[in-house]
């Protein structure tokens, strides 16, 4: 088979998967042109990543919730409420930063488990159970911030999560103005990626399975390496990798690994694909429901922490509409509303698409009213694309 035939086959087979990346690339390219390069500047990209953080972690959790055929509307205000809790824990109870964060994450898990109890044990539809949660947490934010109003967080360590950057290596006279530790991390990531891809290829060959033709394999490696390299270079050009980016990356890698490589991940997708069949296959559907909602609650807490840290305070309005942004990000990222289908990586791309639109249109000076319409149109287009390519695959 010739080179171009190979390339076409690869693209056709994976059009759905590559579609989102292409969409993100196109959106970024358009904004780069319309803002005369400001959009793609190091500073803006770093900001964009930091702004995406709290929605991205929610979208990761929401992906799994939708995969097992449920929904969670409560996570926005839960995140906002727990952001206030972490602030109170530090400011009023004088807890140190890390115990305060751990306490908040634990409370998030608890909140998720309560929802799971209602959904799995009491058989209440998730939409209703989490709508109740939405109302309750909204009230809860108002209660805890009633006396003080906005709670300002003075702790620098905590505020660094949303505003700080990883430290750099000492200045050695090479590459001045570039964040060298970020570059090194990027390089390590590229090397690890190449090693793991080569390993997986070798294992497949050992089993005599079909692998990509060599030239395609190399192109794929070069392309992904260039992508990581490019992003690293952009980030390193400003202040380097932010702590928010580190948190999101770690969460994304863990969840990507769990969903694609582990027995737990398989069980989650099986429950989403056909809950009755999963139950009869020895999978405890209730247990999976608890795990997925528990993880969602924990990520809602993390989301609240990221947001409070970025604002250096807990506000009375935190959490409004976060859940809908997260749900939109998941759907743009290819999660199927019918359950059983959806990827963590896709949802993060979805979150980036949403936030790129906001950021790009802000830079262009487009009013908020048109921004909502544009984001709605992109959501609709993404889902139409998804449905159209899915039908063609049959």
């Amino acid at each position, binding site marked *: 088979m010739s080179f171009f035939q190979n390339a076409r086959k690869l693209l056709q087979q994976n059009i759905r998967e590559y579609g989102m990346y292409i969409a993100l690339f196109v959106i970024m390219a358009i904004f780069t042109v319309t803002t005369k390069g400001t959009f793609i500047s190091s500073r803006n990209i770093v900001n964009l990543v930091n702004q995406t953080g709290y929605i991205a972690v929610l979208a990761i959790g929401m992906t799994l919730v939708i995969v097992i055929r449920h929904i969670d509307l409560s996570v926005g205000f839960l995140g906002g409420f727990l952001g206030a809790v972490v602030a109170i824990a530090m400011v009023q109870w004088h807890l140190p930063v890390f115990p305060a964060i751990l306490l908040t994450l634990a409370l998030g898990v608890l909140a998720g488990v309560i929802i799971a109890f209602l959904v799995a044990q009491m058989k209440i539809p998730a939409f209703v159970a989490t709508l109740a949660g939405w109302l309750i947490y909204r009230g809860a934010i108002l209660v805890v911030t009633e006396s003080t109003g906005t709670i300002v967080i003075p702790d620098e360590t905590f505020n660094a999560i949303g505003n700080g950057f990883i430290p750099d290596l000492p200045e050695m006279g090479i590459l001045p103005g570039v964040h060298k530790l970020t570059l090194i991390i990027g390089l390590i990531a590229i090397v690890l990626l190449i090693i793991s891809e080569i390993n997986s290829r070798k*294992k*497949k060959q*050992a*089993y005599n*399975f079909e692998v990509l033709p060599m030239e395609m394999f190399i192109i794929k490696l070069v392309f992904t390496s260039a992508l990581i390299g490019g992003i690293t270079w952009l980030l390193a050009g400003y202040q380097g990798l932010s702590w928010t980016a580190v948190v999101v990356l770690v969460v994304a890698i863990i969840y990507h690994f769990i969903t694609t*490589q*582990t*027995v*737990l*991940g*398989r*069980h989650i*997708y*099986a429950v989403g*694909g*056909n809950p*009755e*069949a*999963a*139950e*009869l*296959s*020895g*999978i*405890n559907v209730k247990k999976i429901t608890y795990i997925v909602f528990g993880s969602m609650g924990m990520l809602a807490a993390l989301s609240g922490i990221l947001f409070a840290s970025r604002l250096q305070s807990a506000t009375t309005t935190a959490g409004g509409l976060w859940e809908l942004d997260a749900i939109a990000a998941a759907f743009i990222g290819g999660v199927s509303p019918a359950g*059983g*289908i959806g990827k963590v990586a896709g949802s993060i791309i979805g979150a980036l698409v949403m936030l790129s639109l906001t950021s790009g249109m802000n830079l262009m000076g487009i009013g908020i009213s048109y921004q909502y319409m544009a984001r709605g149109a992109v959501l609709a287009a993404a889902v139409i694309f998804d449905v159209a390519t899915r039908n063609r695959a*049959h």
Partner: protein
Amino acid sequence: MSNPILEMKNITKEFPGVKALNNVSFQVKEHEIHCLVGENGAGKSTLMKVLSGVYPHGEYTGEIVFDGKVQSFRGISDSEKTGVAIIYQELALVPEMTVYENIFLGHEIKNGSIIDWNETIKRAGEMLKKVKLNVNLAEKVRDLGVGKRQLVEIAKALSKDVKLLILDEPTAALNEDDSENLLDLLRDLKNHGVTCVLISHKLKEVIKIADTVTVLRDGQTICTLDAQKGEVSETALIKHMVGREINNIYPKRETRKVGEVILNVENWNAYDPNLGRSILKDVNFHVNKGEIVGLAGLMGSGRTELALSIFGNPAGYYISGELSMLGSKKRFKHPEDAINAGVAYVTEDRKGNGLILIQDVKQNITLANLKEIATRSIVNDNAEVKVANEYKSSLNIKTPSVEQKVSNLSGGNQQKVSVGKWLFVKPSLLILDEPTRGIDVGAKYEIYTIMTKLVEQGLSIIMISSELPEILGMSDRVYVVSAGKIAGELAIRDATQEKIMQLATNY
């Protein structure tokens, strides 16, 4: 000779990579019952979808002449307008609506733009009389049994002035009585001028009712047989369907070595809190190593419930009684416990609670025993493909690759995937619930052969089946279940169809 009401000429329909129909011709005469038979995947359903417009004009080549005119249907509503109605296996009624609402759903009787409920109820009553169904019109379809729902579907079709009624395996889910009723009704409709096309796997029923039979195989018309000329017989049909003669479809077993008791169930009672009544009463039975135990009985007698109550009780019945495996007492709280103890259950409803249709063959095969191919909870994808390929070849699963989605496979091959999935848990007791329902003769034979091999290797099988010949052909011992009780146990040499039916209907 009456005129043809329908002629489909040189129909060819291709899917990516497959020619589902290859130059098929199909002719139905007016006022006859025409049976369409063939193995699964032979193209029967595809042909009917072409006819009804599910695959619109232009997506196939060839010509459809119906009622003397060349037709080019663009959708089901087009074909319905000209008088073609299809009743599918999966019924298309709205469970929460009443019988009369369902009958006129989609072609409501209107006064201006307001539904005329009085006229609707009156006309619905007339329709029910035509199909000889005696139920309250205001009853919700949810509360009717499968047999009655089928009749409501037919009433719905009749209310649209149907000229050609197509039934896709209407008796697959019916018991003997309901099937018999349905066949009577079809004869009656024929006398009243309705032409019927019947797709069926049940050859006995085809022989009983058909005026003409068309056999499809591998997307081609093999032959059309005329019943009046005595061309329709079981051997002839099987020969044409599979392209070879199957003299004895139940394979001979080399050895019958029956070993120690593997499963023993005593004083087993179950109460279903959802139905609010007890469903199993004082059940006692046992299974030995290396034997096939048949569980016969009518549909709804409690056979599936018995199997599920043993298999970790996923439906949440309240259970009392004792269960032991190889002499040690067990209590399974979840299917997981049963699987770990070596029990596997292949469901009767492979699409509903057996397979995950949106996932591929390999994921379905490994699902119930992922730990076998995982180290420290991390799944080895390559080992998975290898395992799946082993079952693909040993069970002869016809699929281009194990990465194919299960929804794209034919019924027989889906059933093999289901069996493969449960063999991979390496069970010592395999429960097969209606293992050959809705699959064709060739695939049935393959399933029987697999069962035979398994018991020769020392596995024990409980086979639940509504088909008496299958029970008699495969079992070593038969229990007959009736109204939640074991009505009797028969050694295979004493068992006859009559004896089993007598026990099964003996409440």
